[in-house]
């Protein structure tokens, strides 16, 4: 009887530990990234619903990876210009971010709640890598993590040239929005 008890105790410990280990990493493969360009002649927005991201709650590391061709526009001409002329997605098919939640110690990923997050790291778009910092919100609920952020990037920082003739159509600074629903990463 006692040995059975010990056995169950052992089993529970095992489950708890493996459980805890599995919960260090959270990921999403259908994260949402969108951008918005507000210019005098027209507003342009595009959405990507297949963004990949992994977050390590132990050290606050975040990796984001997306395919430029997965951005969908209302007008196919805009999409064509975006891919062929601006981000040159045939040459640079992916955009990536690698960084850290700098205040991750203030976030209790094991406890439901809303937290504010400071993120900084390096972002690569159009083959150009630059440091970037942004503010975001993190909501922990039922062992899932929702992370949202809004920030602005300047096209010229990433070597993206907008021809003068469409200067009235495309903004120099683009609003970026991300919305990720992370789930525990199990393999």
């Amino acid at each position: 009887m006692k040995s059975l008890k010990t056995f169950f105790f052992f089993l529970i410990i095992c489950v708890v530990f493996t459980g805890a280990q599995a919960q260090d990493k959270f990921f999403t493969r259908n994260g949402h990234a969108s951008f918005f360009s507000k210019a005098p002649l027209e507003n342009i927005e595009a959405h990507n619903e297949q963004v990949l991201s992994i977050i390590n709650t132990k050290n606050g590391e975040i990796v984001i990876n997306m395919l430029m061709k997965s951005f969908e526009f209302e007008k196919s001409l805009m999409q064509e210009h975006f891919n062929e002329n601006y981000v040159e997605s045939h040459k640079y098919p992916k955009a990536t971010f690698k960084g850290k939640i700098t205040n991750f110690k203030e976030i209790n990923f094991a406890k439901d709640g809303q937290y504010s997050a400071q993120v900084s790291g390096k972002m690569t778009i159009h083959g150009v890598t630059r440091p970037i910092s942004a503010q975001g919100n993190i909501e922990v609920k039922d062992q899932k993590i929702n992370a949202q952020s809004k920030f602005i990037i300047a096209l010229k920082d990433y070597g993206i040239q907008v021809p003068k003739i469409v200067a009235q159509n495309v903004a120099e600074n683009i609003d970026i929005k991300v919305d990720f629903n992370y789930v525990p990463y199990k393999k």
Partner: protein
Amino acid sequence: MNLKKIIWILGLVVLIVSMAGLSYGIYLYNKPHVDVANQKAIQQLAATDLMQIYTDNEEEANANYLDQIIQVEGTVREVLANAAEGTAILLATQDDFGSVSCTFMPNQLASIKDIKVGDQIKLKGLCTGMLMDVVLVRCVLLKN
């Protein structure tokens, strides 16, 4: 008299050319997206084969499939609700983790709402490359 006639004709030509230019411009501006539903796929293959081709040589696979409509058949591994709207369906591959990830045209949402894990489905979509999954967008569900 003759000069007047020439000017008239010239004026008319300029008008016609600029009208044509303008309408071509409007056409281009409103050019429709690739019509996945009514265009033929360049190739039909199983989700497992597509993943294998991508894992073997991503660059070569991109050269063949990027921006192309491909028809893929496979078993549903997961159905995910997207953050904004819509659904992503993952088709199982031999890889434990990498799937073929498919997002659908808005007009497909009704026909995919009953799809469950384990279902065998066939679809076509535009290939946009590979991250962890091989990604297809603007998918259209096909009858089995």
